[in-house]
């Protein structure tokens, strides 16, 4: 594995991104504002306080975590799949000295960078609304990169095994949506029946949300455990996109 070759692929993605998608960056600002309006102001009018904080403040760090996560997941499901099968970009790259493992590594790192980048943008918006009291939230950026690698790996595993692009619907409906709803973004998991709570505690997004919320309030106590959990899951998952794509592309 040569770093310079991984970087050459990352620079391809960056060139495309700055050319085609940077103009749509305003949409990334719009999304968290919509969430805040709907849940914070709309729903927040009925829910007074959770864990001793206003509802808007409660959900803000979770919005950072979920937007970052979806950034990585979209990139490494649809994005990777389109490059791999429709545009044949992978075939072109693999005719050069870049190896399949270098290419997969670049895809994962790109997904993780998007996670950190999207998270940072949303952080900025929420900070402007005064919803992030502690500057410690900045430490969430590397955590978002780490969790981004984990979610990018999960997404690429799915991209490697789906029979067609429409099958991603199963992954989003059966995995991502429950993850989004039951990871403690909108309500604390303690309110759930114990067995559901135990399942929800396994959600990697839950650990990311908890870490972001703690940092947003300047607490560092539980962050270490959450980061450790994310790291352990990453170590377990990350070999699989490499193995499965090798099988898929080289047969």
């Amino acid at each position, binding site marked *: 594995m040569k770093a310079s070759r991984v970087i050459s692929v990352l620079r391809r993605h960056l060139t495309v991104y700055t050319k085609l998608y940077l103009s749509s960056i305003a949409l990334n600002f719009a999304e968290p504002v919509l969430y805040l309006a709907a849940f914070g102001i709309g729903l927040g009018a009925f829910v007074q306080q959770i864990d001793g904080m206003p509802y808007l403040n409660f959900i803000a760090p979770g919005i950072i975590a979920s937007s970052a996560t979806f950034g990585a997941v979209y990139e490494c499901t649809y994005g990777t799949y389109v490059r791999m099968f429709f545009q044949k970009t992978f075939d072109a790259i693999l005719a050069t000295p870049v190896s399949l493992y270098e290419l997969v590594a670049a895809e994962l790192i790109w997904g993780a960078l998007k996670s950190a980048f999207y998270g940072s943008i949303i952080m900025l918006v929420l900070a402007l609304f005064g919803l992030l009291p502690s500057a410690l939230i900045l430490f969430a950026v590397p955590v978002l990169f780490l969790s981004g690698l984990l979610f990018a790996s999960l997404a690429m595993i799915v991209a490697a095994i789906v029979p067609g692009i429409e099958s991603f619907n199963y992954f989003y409906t059966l995995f991502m949506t429950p993850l989004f709803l039951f990871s403690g973004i909108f309500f604390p998991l303690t309110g759930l029946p114990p067995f559901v709570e135990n399942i929800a505690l396994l959600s990697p997004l839950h650990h990311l949300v908890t870490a972001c919320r703690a940092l947003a309030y300047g607490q560092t106590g539980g962050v270490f455990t959450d980061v450790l959990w994310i790291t352990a899951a990453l170590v377990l998952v990350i070999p699989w996109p490499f193995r499965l794509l090798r099988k898929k592309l*080289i047969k």
Partner: protein
Amino acid sequence: MDVVRAHALTRKYGDFFAVNGIDFAITQGECFGFLGPNGAGKTTTMKMISCFLPPSSGDLHVFDMSVCEKPGEIKARLGVMPQEDNLDPDLNVIENLIVYARYFGIGKREAMLRAGELLKFIELSERNHTPIKDLSGGMKRRLMLVRALMNNPEIIMLDEPTTGLDPASRRSVWDRMNELKFNNTTLLLTTHYIEEAERLCDRVAIMDRGRIVAVDTPRTLMITHGGNLEDVYLKLTGRTLEG
């Protein structure tokens, strides 16, 4: 000097032998063609030489290096023009060349110089900033050819370089290939066009169902077996090239 050497080279997909124990050697500077109908094993052979598919068994050496051991080093010295259009549709003409060169570790300044020369060579100089989707089929094919030349390769591999092109575009690609031959670059191509094989190839390997049934100069093949290459193919395999 042989730049490619294959011995008992085999590639299986499940129980199907796409390439079944072939031997061949390609000499530096020659234009070597694999001739045969679809499914003869030409593309699979090319993919093994370009280190994309590992052989199931047998030996394959390119520049005296095994494709299993040194794929990165081998690919750095090859130029590959695939059958399907895999130009980067998110990038324009010049960006396609610059980004591709970067995969070889070639910096932007050097890549710009080289891209400028090469685009002149294929008469696409005026189209630096054209999006890929606005190029005609023939232009795309020519652009894929120069993309394969960005790293100054010692062997250029062309998989069905003119399939699906109109006669004028085909002639234009042939002209470029002839110029490359004059520069003593090794050319390796697959084709099912008799005319292409006769015009360009110094030697032809006739492939049928994963095997090489004959290797020689087009002229010798035609003299030995009588008729043109189409007749030679029919005689050796009992089938036509369209089959």
